[in-house]
C-alpha cells in the first residue's frame, strides 16, 4: 500500500492496529477527481459501493480518479493527494495515465461493476493493514517550493532575496511559493516579474557575500546565533536578519556617512536596495530592478543624511514600532527593520500632521493623548490597501474554490477575491477544457463525432448530435424522421440526466442531503435507461419535482440570487424571472417536458453519423444542449473533418460570473455560480 502510515516494528499496539485497519476499510471517504458529477455521468454509484464523498482532501482517504484526466487536473490531484492524511489510497477507474500521482492501489474499468470490484480490493488491502514500517514520502513537482520575501504590510512587494520594503522599510519576511506556474499565485505582479530575470545575478552576489562573511543571517538580539538560511532565532524566536543591516548603530553610521559622500553625485537608486546608487540609469546589481531617478523627496532625505554625517545636529531617531530603539543616526530598526523616524519636537510634529494626511480624527487623538507619530503612521501604511464597499480599509484574501470544491463542478477553478465573507471579484477558469480533436490532422467524420463526444463527458449525446448534424449538413445527407425522433428523445433523456445531476450538486452545496441523494439516484437510473424504464420512473421523478417546487424556503433562498439583466447573453434554461430561482424552476420544467418527449420514442441510442461517403463541403449546426445553445461549424474534405469551430454555452455563460457575484455574500456567490450550471469541459483552458 503506497499511502500507508508509519509505525514502529513489532509494536505493542499491533492488535489494536489490526482492528483499526479493519475499521478503516469500512470507512472509505473519497475525493473524486475531477468531481462527483463525472462519476455520476459515468454511471458510478458511489454510495452503493460504500464510498462517502469527502468535503476536501483532509477528510478523504481514497483519491478516486475518473480517467482520462488532463495534465492540469493531474497536477491539482497530486496536490490534493499530498494533503490527504495517511492512510490514503489511489483508486483509478478507466483508461489513462496519471503520472505525478503514485501508482494506483486498485484499478478497474469505468463502470459500476468496475467500481465495485476495485472498492472490494481496496477494502481488502486496507483491512490487511494500513501500517507499515517503511514508507516512502510522496513528492510531486507541484509541491516544490522556493522562498521569496514579502513585506507583511505590502503583500505586493515580493523579492527573491531578503531586504527591506521600499514602501515602508520593514524587513521582508520569507514566504514559500510554488516553483511551478501552474498554481496561480495572487502575487504575480510586476515586482516579481521584474526581479525574476535577475535571479542569476543575485545568486552571484550572494556567493560574493558568502566569501566575506560565512554566516548570512544573525539574530539581532543574540549575535552568537548565526545561520546560513533565514529563519527564527532559537533563543528568542525573532527573525534572523542579514548582518550588514543589523550589526548595530555604530556600523550603520559608518556605512551611512560613507554613502553620504557618494550620494552627492548619485542620481539613480535601486528601489529595493537604497545603498545601490549610480550616476547612470541601469539595473541594480543585487536584484536587477531598474534604478529609479532620485526624486525630490529622496534628495531631501539624503540631504538629511549627509547633514547628519557631518554631525551638526544631534537629532534622535526611533522606531515607530519599537520605541525603545533610539539611535543617533537614521537607519533601520534592528528589531523589525522599519525605517527609523526622526523624533520630532512639537512644532515639527504639527507640521507632520498638516502635511496632508487626512486621517479623520487622528490629529485630534494625537493632540489629546499624545500618541507617538509613529503609531499613527500605521495608517499611512494602509493607503495602498483596497477600500471595501462599506468604506473601511481592509485587506482582501484570495481563496481558491476549485478545482475540487464540493458544490461546484470539478475541474472548474473559481478564485475568489474575498473581503471578509463577501466576494469582490472572481477569476474563473477550467483545468480540463477543450482540446482540438483535429490537432493531429484531419479526422474521419465518424471519428470526429466520437472524439467530440468523449471530450464532453457531461453532455456526450448533445455534442455527438451536434457533430452529426454539422457533418450531415456539410455532406448534404439527412437523417430519416425516425432517426431524428430517436435523436431528440435521447437528447431529452440526457437533459433529464444533466438537470438531475445539477440538482444533486445544488443539494450538496445548500446542505439538502435528501435532494442530493435522491437526484443522484434518479440520475443513475435514468441516464442510460430505455423508454419503458423511464416511463416507470416517471412518478418518482415527478414526486421529487413537486417536492422541490413546494419547498417554499428553497425558492426563497434562490430568489434573491443571480438575477441576470434581460440583455445578458444567457441561453440556458430560463423562465419569466432570470434569477437563480427562475433557472431552478426552468430546469424542473424542462425535466417534466423532456419526460413527455421520451414517451413516444421506441428506443433510445447515442446518435451515430449517417453515411456521408467522401463528401466535401461546409456545414453549420446548432443544438440546444442541457446548458444552452451550442453551435459547430465544420469543413469536410473528402469525408474527413479538416477544421471545426465549436461554440459552447459555458463559454458565453462564464462571462456572467463576475457581475453576478460582486459584493455578494460568499454563500450567495456560490449559489449564483452553481445556478449557471457551467461545465468546465466546455471551456477553454
Amino acid at each position, binding site marked *: 500500500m503506497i499511502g500507508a502510515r508509519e509505525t514502529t516494528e513489532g509494536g505493542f499496539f499491533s492488535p489494536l492496529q489490526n482492528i483499526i485497519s479493519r475499521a478503516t476499510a469500512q470507512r472509505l471517504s473519497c475525493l473524486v477527481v475531477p468531481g462527483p458529477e463525472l462519476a455520476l455521468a459515468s454511471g458510478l454509484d458511489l454510495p452503493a459501493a460504500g464510498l462517502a464523498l469527502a468535503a476536501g482532501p483532509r477528510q478523504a482517504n481514497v483519491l478516486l480518479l475518473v480517467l482520462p484526466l488532463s495534465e492540469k487536473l493531474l497536477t491539482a490531484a497530486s496536490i490534493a493527494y499530498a494533503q490527504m492524511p495517511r492512510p490514503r489510497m489511489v483508486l483509478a477507474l478507466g483508461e489513462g495515465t496519471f503520472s505525478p500521482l503514485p501508482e494506483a492501489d486498485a484499478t478497474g474499468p469505468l463502470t459500476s461493476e468496475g467500481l465495485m470490484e476495485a472498492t472490494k480490493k481496496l477494502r481488502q488491502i486496507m483491512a490487511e493493514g494500513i501500517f507499515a514500517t517503511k514508507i516512502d514520502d510522496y513528492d510531486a513537482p507541484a509541491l516544490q517550493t522556493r522562498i521569496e520575501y514579502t513585506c507583511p504590510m505590502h503583500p505586493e512587494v515580493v523579492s527573491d532575496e531578503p531586504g527591506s520594503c521600499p514602501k515602508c522599510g520593514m524587513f521582508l519576511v520569507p514566504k514559500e511559493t510554488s516553483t511551478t506556474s501552474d498554481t496561480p499565485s495572487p502575487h504575480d505582479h510586476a515586482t516579481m516579474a521584474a526581479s525574476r530575470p535577475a535571479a542569476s545575478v543575485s545568486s552571484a552576489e550572494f556567493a560574493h557575500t558568502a566569501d566575506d562573511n560565512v554566516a548570512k543571517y544573525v539574530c539581532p538580539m543574540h549575535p552568537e546565533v548565526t545561520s546560513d538560511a533565514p529563519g527564527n532565532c532559537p533563543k528568542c524566536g525573532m527573525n534572523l536578519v542579514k548582518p550588514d543591516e543589523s550589526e548595530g548603530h555604530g556600523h550603520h553610521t559608518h556605512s551611512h556617512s560613507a554613502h553620504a559622500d557618494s550620494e552627492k553625485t548619485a542620481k539613480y537608486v535601486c528601489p529595493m536596495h537604497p545603498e545601490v546608487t549610480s550616476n547612470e540609469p541601469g539595473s541594480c546589481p543585487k536584484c536587477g530592478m531598474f534604478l529609479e531617478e532620485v526624486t525630490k523627496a529622496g534628495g531631501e532625505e539624503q540631504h538629511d543624511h549627509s547633514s547628519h554625517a557631518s554631525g551638526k545636529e544631534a537629532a534622535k531617531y526611533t522606531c515607530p514600532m519599537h520605541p525603545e530603539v533610539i539611535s543617533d543616526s537614521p537607519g533601520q530598526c534592528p528589531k523589525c527593520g522599519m525605517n527609523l523616524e526622526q523624533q520630532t519636537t512639537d512644532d515639527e510634529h504639527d507640521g507632520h500632521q498638516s502635511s496632508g494626511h487626512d486621517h479623520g480624527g487622528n490629529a485630534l487623538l494625537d493632540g489629546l493623548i499624545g500618541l507617538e507619530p509613529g503609531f499613527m503612521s500605521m495608517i499611512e501604511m494602509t493607503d495602498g490597501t483596497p477600500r471595501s464597499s462599506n468604506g473601511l480599509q481592509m485587506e482582501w484574501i484570495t481563496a481558491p474554490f476549485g478545482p475540487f470544491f464540493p458544490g461546484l463542478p470539478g475541474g472548474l477553478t473559481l478564485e475568489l477575491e474575498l473581503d471578509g465573507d463577501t466576494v469582490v471579484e472572481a477569476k474563473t477558469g477550467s483545468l480540463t477544457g477543450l482540446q482540438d480533436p483535429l490537432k493531429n490532422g484531419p479526422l474521419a467524420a465518424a471519428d470526429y463525432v466520437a472524439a467530440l463526444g468523449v471530450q464532453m463527458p457531461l453532455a456526450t449525446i448533445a455534442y455527438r448530435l451536434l457533430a452529426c448534424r454539422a457533418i450531415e449538413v456539410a455532406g448534404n445527407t439527412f437523417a430519416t424522421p425516425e432517426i431524428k425522433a430517436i435523436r431528440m428523445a435521447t437528447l431529452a433523456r440526457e437533459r433529464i440526466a444533466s438537470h438531475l445531476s445539477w440538482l444533486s450538486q445544488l443539494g450538496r452545496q445548500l446542505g439538502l442531503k435528501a435532494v442530493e*441523494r435522491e437526484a443522484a439516484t434518479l440520475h443513475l437510473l435514468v441516464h442510460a435507461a430505455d423508454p419503458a424504464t423511464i416511463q416507470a420512473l416517471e412518478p418518482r421523478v415527478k414526486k421529487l419535482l413537486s417536492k422541490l417546487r413546494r419547498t417554499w424556503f428553497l425558492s426563497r433562498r434562490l430568489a434573491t440570487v443571480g438575477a441576470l439583466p434581460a440583455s445578458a447573453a444567457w441561453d440556458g434554461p430560463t423562465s419569466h424571472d432570470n434569477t437563480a430561482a427562475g433557472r431552478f424552476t426552468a430546469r424542473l420544467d424542462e425535466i417534466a417536458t423532456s419526460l413527455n418527449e421520451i414517451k413516444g420514442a421506441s428506443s433510445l441510442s447515442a446518435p451515430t453519423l449517417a453515411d456521408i461517403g467522401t463528401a466535401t463541403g461546409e456545414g453549420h449546426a446548432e443544438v440546444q444542449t442541457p446548458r444552452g445553445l451550442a453551435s459547430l461549424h465544420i469543413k469536410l474534405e473528402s469525408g474527413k473533418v479538416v477544421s471545426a469551430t465549436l461554440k459552447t454555452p459555458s463559454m458565453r455563460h462564464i462571462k456572467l460570473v463576475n457581475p453576478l457575484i460582486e459584493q455578494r455574500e460568499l454563500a450567495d456567490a456560490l449559489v449564483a455560480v452553481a445556478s449557471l450550471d457551467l461545465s468546465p469541459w466546455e471551456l477553454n483552458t
Partner: protein
Amino acid sequence: MSAVLLILALTVGVYAVAVLEDWASHNRLRLLGPVISTLALLGQESVLHRKNDRLFFETAPILLLVGALLSLAIIPLAPGLIVTDLATGALFFNAALAYVLVALIMAGWGPDGAYGMIGGWRFLGQLIAYAMLVVMPITTVAMRAESLSTITIVESQAQLWNIVYQPLGFVLFAIAGMAMAFVPPFDLPNAEGELAGGVEAEYTGVRRMVFRLGRMVLILSVASATTVFYLGGWLGPWLPDWAWSAIKILAVTALMLAGGRMLPRVREGTLLAWAWKLGIPLALVNIFLVGVLVLVVPL
C-alpha cells in the same frame, strides 16, 4: 454510584447522538457506525501545519469538548441524577456554551486557512443572531420557576409543561438552540458545500475525533436543555424518571437533526435580519406575555 450512572448516561447519550447524526446525513441507521468511525479516525494521521497558530489549533477541540461537557453538568436526568445542581444552572448552561464560540474562532483562526477563518468569524455573527433568543426565553422559564436551578425549573412544570405554558418561548428557544449547536440548516461555520468543512476542515485523525466528540456532546446538551426547560425534564407517567428524560432528549435530538435535512442552509445576512427584526421583538413580547400569565394564571 450516581457518578457511574452519569458517565454511563453520557456515553450512551453521545453514542445515540452520533448514530442519529449518521442517520440524518446518510439516511441509514448503522448501530456500529460510531465505533468504526472512532477507530478509523484513531488510525488516521493528525496533520499539523507549519506557521500556524499551534496553540489555538490544539486548544480549540479541547475547549469545545470542555464547554459542551460543562454545560451538560447542570442537566438533571432524574431527581438526584445530576452532576451539579447549581443555583444559577440555567445561566451556567449559557456561560459554558459561550466557549463554543471561542473554540470555533480558535479553530478557524489557527490553521491560517481561508475556509476555516471565514467559518470562525461567521459563527460569531451567528452567535449575535441566536444568543438573545436563547437567554430571553430562559428568563421566562425562570420567571415561572422562581429560580435558575434546573431541578426547580423541572419541578415547576409538574402541572403543565412549559411548551404549553409558553409555546412562543419554546419555538424561539428550539430554533436558537439549533443555531447554537450549528446543526443544519444553521451549519454556517462548517458548511460542506460552501466552505469545504470550514472550521473543521483542517482537523484530521485524533484531533478531528475530539472535535466531533465535542460537537456530539454539544448537540446532546442543547437537546437536553430544551427537554429540561420546556418539556418537563423527567416528568411523565408510568415510566421511571430517567427513561422519560432519555426518551425526550433523544426525540428532541432526532427532530433537530431531521428538521435540517429538508431546509437549505441559511445565509448569514438572512439569519441576522430575521433574528433581530422578528426574533428579538417576539422574545420581548414573550417576556411580557409570560409576565402577565404568571401573575394571572399562577400554575
